[in-house]
């Protein structure tokens, strides 16, 4: 790779890098055109807003996953973590019992704090335990999931205070200037994430760690701290996603967040982040999350795909979208 890149002139190289970052956006546009051809209702504002709004959880979680994966790690526990945080947050709100903004604030803080704590646990076990992140987070995935099942006694954890529920509900369903809050939330999270990843020394350390751990260590990158921090960022992102998730249905069940980890990882990879680490693309990740949700939406809106084959067509579309991306930047 380096050999072929070296002889290229500077501005040409810059152009090809831009194409790489742009390709998820191109895939997105292709999908939107396909959707519009399949069903004219697809392009209505309400449908598009619905889809982008509900991609918010995965998008926010995937921004965190971009850090972990760019740093050469992996976090499989995010779906279970989201369920656990949602459960604990609702139980906290129920126990406080109030219907005012103060109560809500305590619940929100508890969610973020628990997210950070879960991330810290993952990070410390990975760094100090020197265990593969795949195994560590597979373990915590089971632990978090069981804890929420235990808290719910197998049933549902529901927000009991009706006033509080109505107070909190607009966080998912409300909008400002026609843009729903969850969309604003994930744009802000992505902007902050992009700022940290591209404009701080920590961000450069993450990428350095992901591309070559030994080189990073010899260059003086504080490996354990950077790695642990990526997991904490992931945890905080899951916490933020839960803040937007809970007001939608006001409850957490043992099936909350099931397979979100796979969706988040898929969004990250569609977005152009290398699964082996060393490259991180925050905006690509966000587009990846929207693409995933769009594909599901197009499936329901189409009239010719039998409900038995939805999964197959979805899988094929994702693979084709990746092939289109590849051919786009190979053609340059």
């Amino acid at each position, binding site marked *: 790779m380096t050999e072929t890149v070296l002889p290229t002139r500077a501005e040409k190289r810059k152009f090809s890098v831009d194409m790489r970052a742009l390709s998820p956006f191109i895939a997105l546009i292709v999908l939107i055109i396909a959707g519009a051809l399949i*069903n004219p*209702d*697809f392009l*209505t504002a*309400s*449908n598009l807003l*619905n889809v982008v709004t*509900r991609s918010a959880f995965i998008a926010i979680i995937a921004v965190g996953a971009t850090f972990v994966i760019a740093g050469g790690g992996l976090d499989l526990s995010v779906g279970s973590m989201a369920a656990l945080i949602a459960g604990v947050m609702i139980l906290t709100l129920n126990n406080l019992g109030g219907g005012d903004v103060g109560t809500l604030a305590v619940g929100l803080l508890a969610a973020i704090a628990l997210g950070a704590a879960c991330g810290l646990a993952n990070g410390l076990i990975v760094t100090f335990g020197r265990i593969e992140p795949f195994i560590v987070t597979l373990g915590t995935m089971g632990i978090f999931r069981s804890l929420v*099942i235990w808290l*719910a*006694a*197998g*049933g*549902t954890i*529901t927000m009991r205070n009706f006033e509080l529920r109505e107070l909190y509900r607009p966080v998912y*369903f409300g909008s400002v200037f026609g843009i729903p809050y969850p969309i604003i939330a994930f744009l802000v999270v992505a902007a902050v994430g992009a700022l940290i990843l591209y404009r701080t020394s920590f961000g450069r350390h993450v990428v350095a760690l992901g591309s070559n751990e030994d080189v990073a260590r010899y260059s003086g990158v504080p490996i354990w701290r950077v790695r642990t921090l990526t997991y904490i960022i992931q945890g905080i992102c899951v916490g933020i996603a839960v803040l937007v998730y809970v007001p*939608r*249905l006001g*409850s957490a*069940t*043992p*099936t*909350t967040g*099931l397979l979100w980890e796979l969706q988040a990882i898929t969004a990250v990879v569609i977005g152009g982040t290398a699964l082996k680490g060393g490259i991180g693309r925050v905006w690509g990740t966000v587009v990846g999350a929207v693409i995933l949700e769009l594909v*599901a*939406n197009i499936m*329901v*809106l189409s009239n010719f795909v039998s*409900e*038995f084959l*939805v999964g197959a067509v979805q899988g094929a579309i994702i693979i084709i979208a990746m092939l289109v991306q590849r051919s786009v930047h190979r053609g340059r």
Partner: protein
Amino acid sequence: MKATVLKFALAAGLMAGVATSATAQQKNVTIGVSIPAATHGWTGGVVYHAQETAKQLEKGYPGLKVIVKTSPDGASQANALDDLTSQKVDALVVLPFNSDELTNPMREIKKRGTFVTIVDRGLKDPSIQDIYVAGNNPEFGRVAGKYFVDNLKQGNVVVFRGIPTVIDEERVSNFEKALEGSGVKVIDKQYANWNRDDAFKVMQDYLSKHPKIDAVWASDDDMALGVMEAIRQAKREDIKFVLGGAGMKDMIKKVMDGDKMIPADVSYPPSMISTAMGVTAAHFYTNAPMRGTYTLNAQLITKDNAKDHYFPNSPF
């Protein structure tokens, strides 16, 4: 129906009291109960009712010991069955994850002389089971379909399917059979995995796609809750009602309170495990014949009978 089930268990308990006082006090029987872990609202209800019934039965029949074991998936259920049989149980009450997988292990257990009761999902070889307590999935679909025919008479209905399984297939195909010849038309069907979030998304998409929907068969109470939230967001007035299923307490409460959007529900009670445990215990402590197949009806729950189906303490 849950109420009748509980009454039955209690009645069995009372019968036992009479029977045991007549015979010797010391008749030691151990019943093992193997059920799925509480990973879904309905299985959560199964666990709750199994534990409650275990307590009631042990009180009612002196000398009876009931061991309840939960397993998170089919493979660990096979292991749990091994563990239970090594504890020398006289009878096993099993709600299998997957009846095909468990048919052979159960055959081995049966050969050792253990009394076998199967709940909800029957084994491939029915000769293995001494007692089979079956939930009635075709009936579940039929009752729901009949409700639409009687109450909607004509109009467009969207359908939510669960997870692709035999249970789901039986429910949906019989639902459609019940609609045949009526003015009620199914305009769309999608899987939403018996999951609230998925049902919310699918309903949002249905609302974008179909300008006029007269009613929704959510086919499950969890999914119905997601559906309701999507309808509320879209502020659509064309949908007259949503029919769920299973008998979750929140939904039964809505039916009881006369919620216009949730006028009814169809029962598929997790307490069928209690029926099975009660009948199994009665087999050992009474002289009444108990072997056979018990098919529970899927009942239509309306405002009139909702009280009988409401269990505020159950997690489901």
